[in-house]
């Protein structure tokens, strides 16, 4: 992760962030998505979160698959390299790139089709590997670029503009991620500025895969009556599991809270995550609790949001590879080509 930059005074009214950068390098190209698209709001939150966290943008690497969602990395963090991969297979590309240089901070943006249909295999293995990567699903329940067909996260009974009703159950990517051993699982709504910002900052502070499903209505194809991914439906059915507050590691702020209703989690980089208004029996570091809450809210017809599960301590995929400290991509020849005697020894064994 890139948060090892020396702590500087926090920018307040000034236009510079804590590493002395303006917001410009955190921005990207002009969006080509529809006006009012939820994805653009998410882009804004990403820009703000990285800027406010003072992440070095040159140290970030962006990934995406194919679809509307996957265009968005071109619209934020123009100072970072980006890779728009093939449909559903961004996790593999991200895994390779992070192995080549494990000092980078990775962020991937996918969509519900890109993740839950064509990319399901790679999504599953990304979750179980716990690659250090922020993985955002911009989830609108439909395929925008091909003009509005259902995706696998569309809810049972949800209706297309054409009147077609979805007769298959939705895949709940959060439930699945928990089952697969993901170490950070959250759901948010593109219209919830405060919650999404806090979750993104927590994700930046996380040391493994931070999986965030963001309901992001498609204004063109899936924002009508009968859709369960429309702005109005989400607003009516959203249920907060918790209030998410985030205190970055570089801010020394004392916050008083009631331990009965608030749980504090110390993140990988030392930042603090405060999850409040929790039910008494809920523990965000207990995967079974998380799955139960999700399942129960679904039965009630609610759309539960918040950070469902977080485990900041486990080993990530890069840890398991026991790599040298320097990135693999720039190791000098003498470190990657064994000496002459190594070959002689091998040849001798084969004689």
């Amino acid at each position, binding site marked *: 992760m890139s948060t090892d930059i020396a702590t500087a005074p926090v920018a307040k009214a000034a236009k510079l962030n804590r590493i002395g950068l303006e917001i410009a*390098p955190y921005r990207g190209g002009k969006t080509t998505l529809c006006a009012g698209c939820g994805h653009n709001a998410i882009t804004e939150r990403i820009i703000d979160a990285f800027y406010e966290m003072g992440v*070095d943008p*040159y*140290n970030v*690497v962006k990934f995406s698959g194919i679809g509307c969602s996957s265009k968005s*990395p*071109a619209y934020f963090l*123009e*100072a*970072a*390299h*980006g*890779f*728009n*991969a*093939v449909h559903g*297979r961004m*996790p*593999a*590309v*991200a*895994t*390779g*790139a*992070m*192995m*080549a*240089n494990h*000092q*980078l901070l990775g962020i991937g943006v996918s969509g519900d089709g890109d993740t839950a249909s064509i990319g399901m*295999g*790679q999504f*599953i*293995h990304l979750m179980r590997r716990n690659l250090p990567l922020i993985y955002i699903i911009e989830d609108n329940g439909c395929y925008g670029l091909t003009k509005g067909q259902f995706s696998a996260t569309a809810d049972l009974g949800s209706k297309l503009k054409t009147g077609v009703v979805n007769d298959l159950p939705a895949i709940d990517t959060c439930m699945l991620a928990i089952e697969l051993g993901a170490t950070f699982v959250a759901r948010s709504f593109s219209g919830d500025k405060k919650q999404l910002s806090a979750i993104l900052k927590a994700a930046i502070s996380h040391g493994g895969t931070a999986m965030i499903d963001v309901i992001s209505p498609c204004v063109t194809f899936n924002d009508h009556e009968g859709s369960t991914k429309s702005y109005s439906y989400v607003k009516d059915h959203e249920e907060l599991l918790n209030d998410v507050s985030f205190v970055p590691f570089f801010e020394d702020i004392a916050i008083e809270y009631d331990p009965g209703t608030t749980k504090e989690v110390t993140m990988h980089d030392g930042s603090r995550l405060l999850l409040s208004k929790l039910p008494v029996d809920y523990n965000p570091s207990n995967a079974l609790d998380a799955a139960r809450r999700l399942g129960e809210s679904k039965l009630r017809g609610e759309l539960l949001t918040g950070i469902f599960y977080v485990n900041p301590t486990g080993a990530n995929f890069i840890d398991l*590879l*026991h*790599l*040298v*400290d320097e*990135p*693999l*991509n*720039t*190791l000098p*020849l003498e*470190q*990657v*080509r*064994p000496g*002459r005697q*190594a*070959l002689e020894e*091998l*040849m001798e*064994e*084969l*004689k």
Partner: protein
Amino acid sequence: MNTDSSRNGGMATNGHTAVNDFNIHVATANGSGSQTSNMVLLRSIFQMGIPVCGKNLFPSNIQGLPTWFTIRVNKDGYIARRERNDILVALNPETAPDDVRKQEPGTIVIYDETLNLNQQRHDLIFYPVPFDKLVKPVCPEAKLRKLVRNMIYDGVLARLLGIEMAEIERALKQQFKKKAKAVQLNFDAAKAGYEFAGENLPKQDLFRVERLNQTQGKIIIDGNSAAAMGSMFAGVTVFTWYPITPSSSVGEALIEYTKRYRLDPQTKQATFAIVQAEDELAAVGMAIGAGWAGARSMTATSGPGISLMAEFVGLAYYAEIPIVIFDIQRVGPSTGLPTRTMQGDILFTAMLSHGDTKHIMLLPSSVEECFTMAGTAFDLTEEFQTPVFVMSDLDLGMNYWMSDPFKYPEQKINRGKVLSAAELERVGKFARYQDIDGDGIPYRTLPGTKHPLAPYFTRGSGHNERAGYSERPEDYKNNMDRLARKFDTARDRVPAPVLEDNAQAEIGIIGYGTSTWAIQESRDWLREHHGIQTSYLRLRAYPFNGDVTHFIRKHRQVYVVEQNRDAQMCSLLKLDLRVEEVAKLRSVLHYDGLPITSNSIVRGIMAYEKDKPTLQPIETVEKILYA
């Protein structure tokens, strides 16, 4: 017809001795521990200075199905597969009757006496051996007997052929390294066979070995281990793979070698990442991600994996990302014959993926080239920023080949046109896909480069010189033309063909990969027995270069020898040639799943040459080719 120099199997009757020139064919059941006894047999003859080659003809199965191991012993150094056998070791009750039926008269048969094979034919020489009776006293532990039982035939053959028991023991030590108990147990079984043969099996044939000095200093290795070793010395840092026969042992060997030689001596941390992915899509995707971020990355697979990788390879071609792909070709289409060999992915791989794509392919013929071409592939992929395929096959990858020891790579590695922050500062501008040098090869920067000029957005969609999204016709065309220019630049940078020019020859042969060993043997046969002189051009890479055209022009007739049905390399050649050159090409094809033999090549060439000594009109040639 038969081109084998020791073709007359009835040596016992005609008095022809067969010293250091015969085939041993061992028929066992898969999973019965015959791998050890076969390797020991191979190595012990090799250690006596006699050229050998060992080929596994195995089923797609873990245990129980029939498997054959064939050892060719040849004083002249011919190491291609040979069609006929001289010695059959028949140990698989299931296949024994058929194995015996297929032998040419005069073949000697060593068999488990309970199989009563001697009743089946009267024109073979039978040596019955009571395997179970012999193994019991040397291996008191009943559960180990099955594993050492096969060593008995090593002992019997040692006695009958004159293989020195000290070499059997040495080969066993090599096989089991420090496991002294295993060495002893297996050697005791071999001795039991040796002593039994001495007392009970009077020699009725004339096959034998005699110590030579032709393998001094040589090694025996399989092509996949050689490829792994070559990759390690080429500085591979990321290897991602999905298990598939016959390529899995590339990954397994690389894991073994890198654990030995690529851990930091102080910290024991790795200078490599090896990941077994969830499928070939992920394997190639990871390698592409790593190559993009600047690692020397690689994957290894076989036909079905190549099919799955097609989409991603198109991305790597278009977005210009370095990645090495070893294709250990097996028999297709579809699942095909997963444990048999074929040069079957040539045409598909050359143009893998949709749209206009073409790829650099290297064509190793030997284990030594598996080693060296791994290094060449990494240099080329980084120099040209495009996928590079190394087209090995099952015969090369999984069988055991003699070789001179590999030479330490002396040259520095070529990391290609990568701009650092300091260089960007000096140059003052950067456009990812601009052709600055006129060779079609652009410059790139790596993620994490701390300079405002460095970042760019990589995409498989249309892009302009600055890597910006573009659907403009002129941007698309400029980019595609530059990619074609880059491919042309590669023509003279890839390994050149190896030419064996014969001034008297009207006939040329073009071949590549593992076909080369049978081609060389067939050329000797054509010269000695048909008076036909040939020149030979061995392709080592695609794209082809000018030498190929020149070679075709110089000859009256050119035979393209390869191991597939559809003349894949010949088809690829035709795309580069003029019509008068195309007219000279004829294909000699071998595609039954077994490695190519010299016989099949001589048959193929003689079918044309004996009646048609003059150049055919094009129509006739086409008819013959596509009949």
